[in-house]
């Protein structure tokens, strides 16, 4: 009897989960390395994998470039992340449903130089796309908003 209750609870919980979280594709790569120069490694589950064009990038991967390195990654929602030499970035979160363009992206830019061209998640729900640096949190705002620039606080 107790077991049956627990199963029922689990079913309810997963129903709630499905209702509140936008459906995302089953876990797969978040993106792929497209362009690459010099030394680039992907750190995954404690392993260091030398990257090359075509290397998949997964949630949780830490991508590092060497002194002579640069890497360009295209995520599944068309976001393009590029890192210059001596850079480290971490794909903290990525969910994407290609049928609805719903999803979320959080990447941590830990060290180095980066360029970002936002993709379809930012178009659909800009509030779900964020980048973190050691001192800044960058959030996408839609172009249709009226902008109030506060300037420096304090």
């Amino acid at each position: 009897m107790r077991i049956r209750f627990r199963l029922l609870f689990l079913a309810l919980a997963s129903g709630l989960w499905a209702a509140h979280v936008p459906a995302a594709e089953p876990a797969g790569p978040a993106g792929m390395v497209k362009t690459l120069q010099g030394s680039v490694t992907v750190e995954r589950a404690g392993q260091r994998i030398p990257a090359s064009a075509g290397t998949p990038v997964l949630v949780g991967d830490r991508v590092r470039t060497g002194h002579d390195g640069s890497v360009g990654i295209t995520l599944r929602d068309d976001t393009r992340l590029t890192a210059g030499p001596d850079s480290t970035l971490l794909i903290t979160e990525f969910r994407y449903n290609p049928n609805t363009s719903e999803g979320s992206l959080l990447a941590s830019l830990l060290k180095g130089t980066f360029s970002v061209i936002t993709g379809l998640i930012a178009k659909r729900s800009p509030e779900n796309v964020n980048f973190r640096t050691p001192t800044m949190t960058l959030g996408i705002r839609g172009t249709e908003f009226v902008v109030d620039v506060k300037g420096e606080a304090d």
Partner: protein
Amino acid sequence: MTRRPVLILATLLAGCAQVTERVVLLPGPDGGTGALSVGTDRGETVLAAPYAMVEIKAGKPSAATSNAEQVRDRYGALLDAQPPQPRSFVLYFHFDRIDLTTDSEPVLARIKEALAAMPAAEVLIVGHTDTMGSEARNDRLALRRAEVVRAALIAVGIPPSAISVSGRGERDLAVETADGMPEPRNRRAEIKIR
């Protein structure tokens, strides 16, 4: 309600005495500029103009403006390393068939050209039909349309593992019609390459 891609440059300058971090908002590929909020523990600034930037000096954010030349000088190599822009194409088919319309043949050729120039290209092909015939039949037809495009791309050397195909039948019409309506613009395959 068109939202444009937002281009951001972020620099983390470890060891630099003055500026330790910098973020610059760039004009997008289509000339428009998005907007970016920059939050720190001292508050939030919104960047909305091209080349608007925030620099962190001694832990404090300060807003300033860069320009195209400065960005080119500092970050030219970085911008040159960006992956190519993903592209989308549509191929059209004859009624109830899996062969392309004459107009779509050159589009297929352009897809092949574009793919040849893309490093580690991935291809997503989604087949569609109009509303003539049963849903089940249209699901099969849509998938066969996607598969015929896939075969054409494999024939020019795209690895099968880089191509994903699906069929949406009549469930995702380009042009809304009643059921049982022939509509050439719905007999299509959408091809996304990145």
